[in-house]
């Protein structure tokens, strides 16, 4: 029973950000059950904190804040009860949790004040120092977090020497992990790495055979920032330590060692979103990105990694109907400049996942007003527009943002580009074309058009045309002349 709530040591995990079920669905389901079944302070507190953290990894900050606010309310209430009962140790613990919840809510000054108060009341417990370090890390004070973590580790080593049980071993590993995280943030990567290697080696040692058997029996795999019980603490700590090590190796450019750590994480949990994202980033493979998006479609760092990947993989496709596949379709369409397709796919995701930060960010990206093509500004009568000009024009049509003057100018403008047609029909030395693309921008005529001469489909041809309008991501063109590309 001593391990009621393994001190909250995992707050500073790298950008956390799951295949048709999002990985964090499982943690959310478990925590919702915990909240419904267990009504003691620590079960309720860890339930709300974990739910908040899980929500945050999937871009649901409004829901996350609601959970953190409830955690704060619980801790504030516990503080009052402890003070009335003149229980100073309980008061200090509650104050530490209140500080942590306030830190997660972004109320930095109050969080700092509460942390300082907690440590004044109870400075002989490793747990209190660890909570202090976690809050300081949240508040962006890594040096303070590191020195507090050193205190926690020193006290835990003393406790382990006095009573070498499993609980104390696990506690020490938790505090060493927290120290490593803080050291990493202060640029002391070598010591951080050494500590993380010690933590993972310790957790893999025969000392923890009993916990591993328990985990196998329960088929437990969920990972939490506020873990209760030996099994959950073991799983979470091993997971985070390996991820932290992987991130450290990756930042140093040691891709092979980073990959090994990510693979270790995936051997324990095949849908870990951070490890899948790491593997995708290292391998630059569409298949791995697909798995990472299924694990967490709403990780903004994964979105940005994928956008960088797409810049050099123009033929990428996303099949399937998982949220991850739909998210990738949005990004693929954005990358190709098919803004209407992107907006439609984003609208559908929005309906299923309302109030999502990542979707909101992408919508803002999409809604950035398109530049007016230069040929419309200059009052030209002929032009050879780029693909980007044509995409801007499509966006202007779709958003109905062309002025009467610009419409007049466009109506008079004759454009010429090298085009490729999809299919060709032919009769009497005439070739019939209906649709094709200009440097990736789709176009069609209002009906199949017969051109004098024998032309091949999928071959570069010089098309002179007028733009009649656009629908979705396609231009409607009026052909004027077609000739072989010179």
């Amino acid at each position, binding site marked *: 029973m001593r391990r009621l709530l393994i001190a909250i040591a995992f707050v500073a995990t790298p950008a956390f950000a*799951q*295949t*048709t*079920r999002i*990985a964090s*669905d*499982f943690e959310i389901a478990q925590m919702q059950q915990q909240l419904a079944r267990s009504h003691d302070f620590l079960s309720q507190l860890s339930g709300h904190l974990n739910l908040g953290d899980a929500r945050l990894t999937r871009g649901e900050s409004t829901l996350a804040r609601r959970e953190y606010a409830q955690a704060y309310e619980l801790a504030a209430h516990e503080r009052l009860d402890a003070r009335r009962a003149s229980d100073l140790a309980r008061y200090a613990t509650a104050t530490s949790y209140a500080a942590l919840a306030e830190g997660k809510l972004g109320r930095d000054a109050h969080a700092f004040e509460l942390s300082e108060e907690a440590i004044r009341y109870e400075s002989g417990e490793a747990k209190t120092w660890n909570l202090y370090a976690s809050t300081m890390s949240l508040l962006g004070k890594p040096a303070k977090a590191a020195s507090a973590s050193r205190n926690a580790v020193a006290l835990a080593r003393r406790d382990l020497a006095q009573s070498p049980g499993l609980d104390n071993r696990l506690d020490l590993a938790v505090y060493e992990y927290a120290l490593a995280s803080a050291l990493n943030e202060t640029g002391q990567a070598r010591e951080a790495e050494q500590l993380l290697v010690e933590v993972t080696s310790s957790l893999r040692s025969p000392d923890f055979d009993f916990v591993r058997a328990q*985990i*196998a*029996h329960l*088929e*437990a*795999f969920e990972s939490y920032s506020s873990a209760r019980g030996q099994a959950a603490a073991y799983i979470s700590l091993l997971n985070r330590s390996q991820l932290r090590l992987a991130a450290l190796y990756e930042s140093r450019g040691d891709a092979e060692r980073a990959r090994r750590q990510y693979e270790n994480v*995936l*051997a*324990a*949990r*095949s*849908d870990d979103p951070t490890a899948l994202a790491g593997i995708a980033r290292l391998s630059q493979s569409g298949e791995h990105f697909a798995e990472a998006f299924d694990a967490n479609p709403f990780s903004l760092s994964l979105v940005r990694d994928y956008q960088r990947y797409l810049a050099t993989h123009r033929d990428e496709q996303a099949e*399937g109907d998982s949220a991850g596949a739909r998210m990738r379709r949005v990004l693929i369409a954005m990358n190709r400049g098919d803004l209407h397709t992107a907006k439609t796919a984003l609208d559908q995701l929005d309906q299923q996942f309302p109030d999502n930060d990542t979707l909101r960010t992408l919508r803002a990206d999409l809604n950035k007003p398109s530049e007016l093509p230069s040929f419309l500004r200059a009052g030209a009568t002929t032009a050879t527009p780029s693909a980007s000009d044509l995409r801007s024009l499509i966006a202007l049509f779709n958003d109905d943002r062309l002025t*009467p*003057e610009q*419409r*007049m100018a466009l*109506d008079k403008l004759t454009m010429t580009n090298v085009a490729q047609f999809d299919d060709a029909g032919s009769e009497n030395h005439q070739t019939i074309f209906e649709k094709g693309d200009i440097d990736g921008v789709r176009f069609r005529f*209002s*009906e199949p058009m017969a051109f004098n001469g024998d032309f091949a489909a999928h071959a570069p041809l010089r098309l002179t045309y007028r733009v*009649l*309008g*656009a*629908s*979705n991501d*396609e231009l*409607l063109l*009026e052909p004027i002349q077609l000739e072989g590309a010179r």
Partner: protein
Amino acid sequence: MKRIALVIINVLAAVAAQAANVSFVTPQNGAQTIGPALIEITTSVANVDRVEFSVDGALAGVARKPPYRIAHDFGTSLAAHSITAKVWSNGFRNSDEATIRTAALTAGETMNVEVVEVPMRVRSAQRLQASDLRVTENGIPQTIRELRADRGAARFVFVVDRSLSMGDGKLDAALRAIASESPLLRNDDRIDLVLFNHNVTKAKAIRRGEQLPSVPPSGGTSLRDALASIVTRERTYAIVITDGGDRNSAISESAALRAISNTKMIVDAIVLGDASNFLRDAATNTGGTLVTADASTLQRALRALILDINSRYTLDYQSHGNGSGWRSIVITPQRRGIEIVNARKGYYAR
């Protein structure tokens, strides 16, 4: 009071008629359209720049001079269409538009032919004929269309549990058994592998006898999700290899049973431990079998299961006389010396 209301309505109607400066010549509102057709409007608007025609929200064509018409191919769809004509005038400063909606074409009467396949194991001293059996569905006698002594080409899906409890060599034994026994399947069978823990991987096509790479056992168990994920309209034999219960499925037992108890799927299972009631029901409902084994006997059990599937009779009948919901199938011998060992017990009709 009544008179005032009437006057107001009349004024509004007059305004509406005036706004309608655009009217369709063809097609007319409510007409039916299919294939290539003309779209044409007339307008009283002066200084027209162009008329844009949109079909179902997509720009279909532009006419600059009267008669304002375009040719458009409505395709082969029987659906209704929304057609909008937007008239730009006075240097694109003004626009007037009108929209009509064509009517959907109704297809002729359709007939739903529902052929039910019943895989069955039968012991008989003589070769079985269709006339030797009687089929009822919810008590209503059905006419047997065909009784085949071979099972025909099918899709086989090995649904393998890769959860953490499949350690100690169980998962490796399962993958080895599939590699060594899958050559017993017909050349024209299609084989898929679905691995599941708390998540279900997409079905991956494998070749007969293909050596399968080792997979680390990890995570929880979503057996119901895994079985429900492979349902298709194809004749499918799902062979489940698992070591027990379900901890993480999103789908309920009844929903999963409803999904898999269709007319074309048979669930067989090898259980390395205690079988769940769900898996028993899934096998029983679909005419499959459930056997227990351990890592050392798994390969033998799989071999026996595939040989059993290969030697089954398949009976086809065209269902009639029942509504949607659970349809219970009862097959009875019509002469002595025939023993029906097992057969599909029924299916859910939607």
